[in-house]
């Protein structure tokens, strides 16, 4: 058994790596994979067996199901671990004092640390965060906003928690709604007021020197929130009327226009980059958020209109009809009946656009020439130092900070996002 596994491994490694530097430099457990497999099977089997025996004792008919469920739990935990491994590793690197991934591994400690599968906990430090955040100078009222923001966020979490604990759902939901507004408003004010001149350090001669790009992640997050938020709002504003017209009105050329909307979107957007660059340059919008927002929105509209049309197709027009019978104009019906009903869909379009824009970097990299306007995506690509070195630690810390907004938004609106996505996906 063991020689077979070993010879298989040797054979595979022989085919792929005639002479590998790496082989000698890794920590190995002889036949580790076999051990892992055995342990996994034993543990999973043991738990399943335990569940089976428990089921047999309590509800004999369900014993098989119990065992299966227990094994499923085990399997899903493995999947979760694998899914989270990169996330955990990123977090660990950002909390490590090493700025380079090439540094030597520790020679003592748990085998997971010695092998470098997990970063060395002995080097735990907040220095990377200090580095990327240390030159951010918030004004006093911005600090107050941050405190309000965090307070409201904690409060919202508390309402969620006490809802689970059996509090009054109705009241808690209302409170959470208020908290949501406080979070949104304080964040909006923060985003609008933070500006590039707040990122500096004082040099030895006592002069104020603007920070270098690796120290401005907060500014980039702010820029990205601004650009993504405005793009989302823009896409919603412009596409809803179009979606409404496609869904509810019949006029000559409707189908052709719809096709045009869908097909023009299939041109690989950023390959038109040079043309967009010259357009923005002509409009005087290069290196401005407005230019980037317009460029992004142009790419978002037809998709958003398409989704909104699909949504309207699925809801009955009877309410509008009633309103029209009561003498409302078409616009009135749209404004007072359709829009309020569609808020979840509009939120979905907004979020989709927001998230899509957050990760974009090609267009931003070309259109934003000044580093103070950069978005997270562009900023994260500039953690190289000179010609060959990447500052991994600082990069990881910035990446963690840059991920937080989108992570929070995603999980806050998880149902709105995944629910509509599924509906949209199934509908095509």
């Amino acid at each position, binding site marked *: 058994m063991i020689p077979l596994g070993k010879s298989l491994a040797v054979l595979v490694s022989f085919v792929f*790596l*005639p*002479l*590998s*530097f*790496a082989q*000698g430099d890794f920590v190995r457990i002889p036949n580790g994979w076999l051990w892992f497999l055995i342990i996994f099977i034993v543990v999973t089997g043991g738990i399943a067996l335990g569940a089976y025996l428990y089921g047999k004792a309590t509800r004999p008919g369900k014993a098989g199901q119990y065992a299966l469920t227990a094994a499923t739990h085990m399997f899903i935990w493995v999947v979760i671990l694998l899914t989270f491994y990169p996330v955990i590793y990123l977090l660990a690197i950002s909390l490590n004092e090493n700025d*380079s*991934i*090439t*540094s*030597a591994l520790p020679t003592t400690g748990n085998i997971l640390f010695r092998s470098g599968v997990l970063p060395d906990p002995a080097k735990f430090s907040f220095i990377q965060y200090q580095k990327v955040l240390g030159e951010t100078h918030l*004004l006093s*009222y911005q600090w107050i906003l941050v405190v309000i923001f965090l307070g409201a966020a904690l409060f919202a979490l508390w309402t969620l928690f006490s809802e689970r604990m059996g509090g009054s759902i109705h009241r808690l939901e209302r409170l959470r709604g208020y908290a949501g507004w406080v979070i949104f408003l304080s964040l909006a004010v923060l985003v*609008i*007021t*933070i*500006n590039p*001149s707040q990122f500096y350090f004082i*040099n*030895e*001669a006592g*002069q104020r*020197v*603007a920070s*270098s*790009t*690796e120290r401005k992640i907060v500014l980039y997050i702010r820029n990205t929130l*601004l650009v993504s938020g405005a793009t989302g709002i823009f896409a919603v504003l412009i596409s809803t009327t179009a979606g409404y017209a496609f869904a509810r009105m019949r006029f000559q050329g409707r189908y052709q226009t719809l096709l045009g909307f869908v097909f023009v979107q299939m041109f690989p957007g950023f390959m038109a980059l*040079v043309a967009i*660059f*010259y357009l923005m*340059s002509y409009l*005087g*919008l*290069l*290196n*401005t*958020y*407005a230019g980037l927002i317009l460029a992004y929105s142009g790419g978002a509209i037809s998709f958003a209109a398409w989704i909104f049309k699909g949504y309207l197709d699925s809801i009955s027009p009877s309410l509008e009809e009633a309103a029209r019978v009561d003498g409302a104009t078409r616009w009135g019906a749209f404004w007072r009946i359709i829009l309020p009903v569609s808020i979840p869909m509009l939120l979905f379009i907004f979020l989709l656009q927001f998230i899509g824009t957050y990760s974009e970097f090609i267009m931003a*990299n*070309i259109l934003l*020439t*000044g*580093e*103070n*306007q950069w978005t997270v995506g562009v900023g994260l*690509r*500039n953690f*190289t*130092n*000179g*010609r*060959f*070195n990447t*500052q991994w630690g600082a990069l990881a810390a910035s990446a963690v900070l840059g991920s937080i907004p989108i992570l929070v938004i995603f999980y806050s609106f998880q149902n709105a996002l995944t629910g509509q996505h599924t509906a949209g996906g199934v509908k095509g």
Partner: protein
Amino acid sequence: MKKILFTVMAFATLFGAVQAQGITVWTHFGDAELEWLQNEAAAFEGAFGVPVSLVKVELGEIKQKLLLSAPEGEAADLIVPIPHDQIGEMASGGVLADMTGFATADYLADLNKQAQLAFTYNGKLFGLPMYVEGPALIVNTDLVPEAPATFEDMIAIAQGLTNDDTYGFLYDIGNFYFSYIWINSNGGYVFGRDASGSLVASDLGLANEGTVAGAELMKKFRFDYGLIPTGVDYGVADGLFIDGKLGMIYNGPWAIPNYRDAGVNVKVMPVPPTADGQYFNGFMGVQGILLNQFSANSVDAANFAKWITRPAAQVTLANLTGKIPSSNKAAQEVSSDPIIAGFAAALANAVPMPNIPEMGNVWGPMGDALTQILDNQESDVPAILNGAAAQVEGN
């Protein structure tokens, strides 16, 4: 009150274009070098009253960004610095200002001739050189107390050191920039020169016998001498040297600060010649300052370019890194530094990278060719090199 004004201004400029005052500089510097540049910028503002804003741009992106955005008035006034091999494309693309006029006789008299040549394209000076850099043999004197006198010695020492714990000689072998030393020393070249010394794009030496011989030597490093296994790239070699596990590395002055910080005792020297007198000379790069042809403030930009290339500034920078100042006076001043002296000796006969636009098409295909050549012992070197050369010509 000031804060309110501040906020109002921030609001106003939120969606509109921000009009920058003074001059803008794109730089790929980081850490100590960036700090040096920030200090020089602050000093310049003190002396000339012109604020300088520094924007970090990745080295690989400068060329494209400048070509696209300079004509639209959106690029920096100055690029500080850029290796000279990139200037051909930018100068041909019309985005670099001819700086011949800014070079006074005094300035030229003090300028390293090789550096001046490196930034001369089509008979015009397209940048003010800052420093000369290039790879040399960097020896960890704790592992290799007796520096090798000949190439054969070097191989022997390296083989002696290559064991479970340490390595003898490693470098980023798949990188054409470094590996050019073996190609050049065997008679290979990138572009030939005509009678007047100008580079000729049609005379390509990347598939000639010399290049093949050089590539075969590189294969020997891996397969015959057993020195440089697969998987070694810049990060591996650099990391091992920092950890004190590598005897000799072929690397440039930019790495010296890290080695110093890690407490490695180093000696910098040329790759030693073979016993029968074959010398090894690789690429030399000159980094210099470029002026944007479309700069709205070329007067101040030129002043700042001269400010950071003045000998005093070059000396401070040289002491930080080990790069050889392009000013003869400054080079003289730091020549007693053993590391700078080591690099100076190694680069004395090095070949400046070609600076014609066609050079932009060389790095990609040649890098790919080297990885293929080094992939296994049976690789067909002439065929691979011919393919790469055809691509360089075809592009």
